[in-house]
């Protein structure tokens, strides 16, 4: 199994980064290949040497996180395309900040897309200038992804009711529970198996 993980940032001590790192380290222990793509903010990160980490600069200063993220994703796409599709069987995006890259890479390379929603704009208060367009992107990401993970029931409810996801597409995997990483891996395996099934050739 070869997994491409997209995360806005990858640095020690940050929540989403630690989540990705935990999954990645578990995967390589089990003999899988993992590549993590993220923004290079210059901060320190550590992980097992088998985990390939590519942090990229973003040569664009945006006036807000929404516009900046859209260009970040274009830089992530470049990295992924350079790696080549043989380097991944599945794309795992994290939050809306990596939805555009996750969606287009999965579509172009015919790979399944797993999206972890760590929190939704509704949960964060929906009170930023760009909340509406961010929420719309979350909605689209949830629509385009083959499977959604959340880390708690509250976020799952928001994904179901605010972002209109069908119940069977969303699973809670709490990273403070036992065997959570095995469950993530299981999801990867199922999605790749489904993707390869002949019925999906269209």
């Amino acid at each position: 199994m070869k997994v491409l993980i997209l995360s806005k940032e990858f640095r020690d001590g940050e929540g989403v980064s630690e989540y990705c790192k935990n999954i990645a380290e578990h995967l390589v222990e089990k003999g899988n290949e993992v590549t993590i793509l993220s923004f290079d903010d210059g901060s320190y990160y550590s992980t097992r040497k088998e985990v390939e980490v590519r942090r990229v600069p973003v040569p664009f200063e945006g006036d807000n996180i929404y516009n900046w993220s859209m260009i970040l994703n274009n830089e992530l796409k470049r990295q992924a395309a350079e790696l080549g599709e043989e380097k991944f069987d599945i794309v795992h995006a994290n939050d809306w900040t990596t939805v555009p890259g996750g969606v287009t890479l999965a579509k172009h390379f015919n790979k399944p897309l797993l999206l972890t929603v760590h929190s939704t704009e509704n949960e964060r208060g929906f009170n930023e200038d760009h909340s509406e367009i961010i929420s719309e992107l979350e909605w689209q990401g949830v629509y385009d992804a083959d499977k959604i993970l959340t880390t708690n029931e509250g976020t799952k409810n928001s994904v179901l009711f605010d972002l209109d996801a069908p119940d069977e597409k969303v699973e809670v995997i709490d990273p403070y529970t036992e065997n959570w990483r095995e469950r993530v891996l299981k999801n990867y395996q199922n999605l790749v198996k489904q993707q390869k099934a002949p019925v999906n050739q269209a």
Partner: protein
Amino acid sequence: MKPLFITWEYPPIKAGGIAAHCEDLATTMADQGHEPIVLTYGPEKETEYRDGVEIHRIPSTNNAENTLAWAMHLGHQIEKKAIQLYKQKDFDLVHAHDWMTVSAATGIKNTLSLPMVFTVHSTQKGRDGIDSQYQRTIHNLEWYGTYEADQVITVGREFSEEVKHTFEVPDGKLNYIPNGVNLEKFDQHNASFNKNNYALDWEEIILFVGRMYPQKGPGHLIEAMPEIIDQNPHAKFIMCGSGATEHYKNIAKNHVGDKVYFPGYVSDKDLLSLMKNARMTVAPSVYEPFGIVPLEAAACETATVGSYTGGMKDTIIHEYTGLHTYPEDSNSISYQVNRALDDPGWTEWLGDNARERVEDNFRWEQISAWTTGVYKKTITN
């Protein structure tokens, strides 16, 4: 060749000059045996085949806080469409027009590993500055477009220098290709026109066409009006274009009363009639990367009095196809307009020369060939 055009506007949707530019260029390329595909904005998902061009319309969002976020969102939707199309057909490259399409084009370039050509029609710095953070972000996006593009095209010779210095574009990457005029469109036009809707029988129309913003300089023309009316009472100013119309209308009415008329929105049909019937057009722009109005007027055999700035340095030849004025100088405008009014025979001769020059130098067939030449360079590199 199979270029993928990315433009936020394509006729019948149009606000600025990019729509007409893209349509004329794509249509001419199709005539020459190429296969351009256009991805553009539309309120509904739609596919259309028109004049040999395949056009896909893609909706954006109603939730954007501003145009920039709207354009970013549209970019993601356009890229998804491009990926879907790419499964059935090849493109040779992606060709973007202005900052609104930079996120779409760079995304497509990176995901599909295609070369990219970027046409810069104007810059934020030139349009209204880069003072606010919002304006600077647009400026940054323009830079990112020139940085990511394999080849950059600019529409004006002097503007080419501006783009080169503003964005530090290396020489080998920069190409000057002017805009063109679709002469057929002007020649086929013979709609009936009631001059009395705009002017009295004995009046001579002096035409302004452009958005009513400082960049286009309507205020300088208005300042020049009393001096012109003094010397040539038969002059009548017709000010076509949207924007801050009320603002300029009030000032102009105070200056010259009924000798100026702001018709508001004017249909293409009437606009062409006005251009053909006008004694001259006046283009008092402060900033004008290219400026299509002098060429459109020329297609109608009408001379232009235009500022000596940007593209108009090339599109007007002083005392041969029109007259130059000093930019932001109303005395210069009144002086040159009066010269043209004083000698109608000479002004007609200027208009005839202008038409001839457009026929020789600003045809889409030629511009399209230059553009595909840039494509070839992009692909072989």
